[in-house]
């Protein structure tokens, strides 16, 4: 016979919350594959292997940097900027199983921010320099952003609202990408001498769209997952819904905003060229998703549609501005993640169904956006500037023209591409020191 009190609410909460943490983390991790495909599709085939390598190693070096150093940095920044005492910043390294689960959720978020950058500097950034910067994103740039906000630092104290990271993750990533693209400079053939922008199509729309849909899939984990606690134990000791009280709102807003963003971007194309552009529509879907991140838990569905629509529209306009000022943001990461992220945080006071509009909150949001953007911009300027000075930022002109796959990796992405039967069969394995031999003399 079962006695009393044998279902401890704390145990139920811990177990079920963990299930949800694992699900959400796994989904956010998969966004990595989304970024990989999205970016690969938007670069030329001569740079695909490089982009994929960056993608794989972003997680490789970044997650370690975040776990070992970043978590501590975030805690220290939170303490410093809120005036509380710093206690055992590296305690997380031995925090134990359940705490690690939450930390991993944060790590997956940090790597979303890091992944954004590689799309901006694609097709000319050196692998080495890029990876150094990724370590910095994981160990410093992103942790400072979370320390200031969710960690309880200065902006958090101020009352800055960014539910799922429209600014903390996406805008920070987008600004890093923008500034890095600025420092690295445009691709050789992107701008004519008179500043006219050339259009450089990527090599595969299906990859770009598949990447978009994988990202959208993972985004459910990103947004609903931010409602991370299913249950809580009330002060009275009872089991109650925690973040899950509003998780359904987050979910429906996330699903609807994709529609609004994609429609917004599609319409811009229709109005401007009389044609719906596939990539622009897909970019609009993502910008919609970014734009809901701050407001997903508090906005009505109708307000969400409006914000998402604006986010979709602005993608195209902001991208135009970038080209006009001579910045070569290959995968449009600033319009999609940067400006759409700022838009989201800015929208909070207007759409918050839990609180009436107040200029105070608007002011706080502006301060938050500016501080986070400034932090991302300045540190990237310094860091990528330094990489530039060291000659680690960018490949040589010749290497760029030949393609980073050949120059940085000695690889062809599609060894048979257009050449089935000609170059597709490879050849003798080559001792790396010996002279190159071939299957027939050369003159």
């Amino acid at each position, binding site marked *: 016979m079962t006695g009393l009190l044998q279902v401890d609410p704390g145990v139920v909460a811990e177990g079920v919350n963990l299930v949800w943490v694992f699900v959400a983390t796994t989904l956010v991790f998969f966004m990595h594959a989304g970024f990989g495909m999205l970016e690969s599709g938007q670069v030329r085939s001569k740079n695909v292997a490089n982009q994929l390598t960056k993608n794989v190693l972003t997680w490789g070096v970044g997650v370690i940097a975040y776990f070992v150093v970043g978590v501590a940095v975030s805690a220290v920044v939170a303490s410093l900027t809120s005036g509380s005492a710093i206690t055992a910043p590296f305690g997380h390294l031995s925090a134990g199983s359940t705490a690690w689960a939450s930390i991993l959720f944060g790590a997956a978020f940090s790597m979303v921010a890091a992944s954004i950058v590689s799309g901006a500097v694609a097709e000319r950034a050196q692998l080495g320099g890029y990876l150094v910067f990724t370590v910095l994103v994981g160990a410093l740039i992103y942790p400072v952003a979370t320390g200031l906000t969710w960690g309880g630092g200065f902006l958090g104290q101020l009352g800055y609202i960014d539910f799922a990271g429209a600014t903390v993750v996406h805008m920070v990533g987008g600004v890093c990408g923008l500034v890095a693209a600025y420092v690295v400079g445009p691709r050789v053939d992107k701008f004519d001498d008179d500043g006219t922008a050339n259009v450089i199509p990527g090599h595969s729309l299906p990859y770009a769209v598949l990447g978009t849909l994988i990202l959208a899939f993972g985004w459910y984990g990103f947004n609903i997952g931010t409602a991370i606690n299913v249950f809580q134990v009330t002060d009275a000791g009872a089991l109650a819904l925690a973040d899950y009280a509003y998780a359904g709102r987050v979910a429906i807003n996330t699903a609807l905003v994709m529609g609004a963003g994609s429609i917004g971007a599609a319409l811009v194309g229709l109005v401007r060229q009389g044609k719906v552009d596939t*990539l622009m529509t897909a970019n609009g879907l993502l910008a919609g998703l970014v734009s809901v991140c701050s407001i997903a838990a508090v906005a009505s569905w109708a307000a969400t549609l409006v914000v998402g629509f604006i986010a979709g529209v602005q993608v195209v306009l902001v*991208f135009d501005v970038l080209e006009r000022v001579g910045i070569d943001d290959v995968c449009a990461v600033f319009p999609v993640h940067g400006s759409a992220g700022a838009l989201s945080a800015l929208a909070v006071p207007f759409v918050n169904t839990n609180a009436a509009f107040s200029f105070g909150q608007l002011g706080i949001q502006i301060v938050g956006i500016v501080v986070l953007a400034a932090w991302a911009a300045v540190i990237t300027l310094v860091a990528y500037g330094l990489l530039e000075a060291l000659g680690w930022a960018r490949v040589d002109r010749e290497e760029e023209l030949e393609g980073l796959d050949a120059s940085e990796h000695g690889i062809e992405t599609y060894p048979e591409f257009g050449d089935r039967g000609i170059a597709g069969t490879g050849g003798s394995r080559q001792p790396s020191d010996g002279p190159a031999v071939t299957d027939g003399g050369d003159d």
Partner: protein
Amino acid sequence: MAADIQMIVAFIRPGKLSEVKKGLAEVGAPSLTVTNVRGRGSQPVKKGQWRGEEYVVDLHEKVKLETVVADVPADDVVDAISEAAHTGDPGDGKIFVVDVDDAVQIRTGKRGPDAV
């Protein structure tokens, strides 16, 4: 050697290949080799688009056709291609005839007109 072997090289619209193939078979010159090419001629440039930005491409997709004939008069082949590939719009393409000095069929080792 064989001055009476000629290679007909034609640049045509990809969509016309199937009809041209039929036309050639009808005049008794079914053997041919085709290649995907891109060409510029009098056809106006076309616009491409990437993320909503338009750009122009002046190289149009074409198919290159090579047929070598010996017994069949080159003119028959030229006419067959002309007819089958015609639309009347710019971009229909051109046909060039080149003299071939010698021909060999690899399988049989035959040379000259017989090889074609």
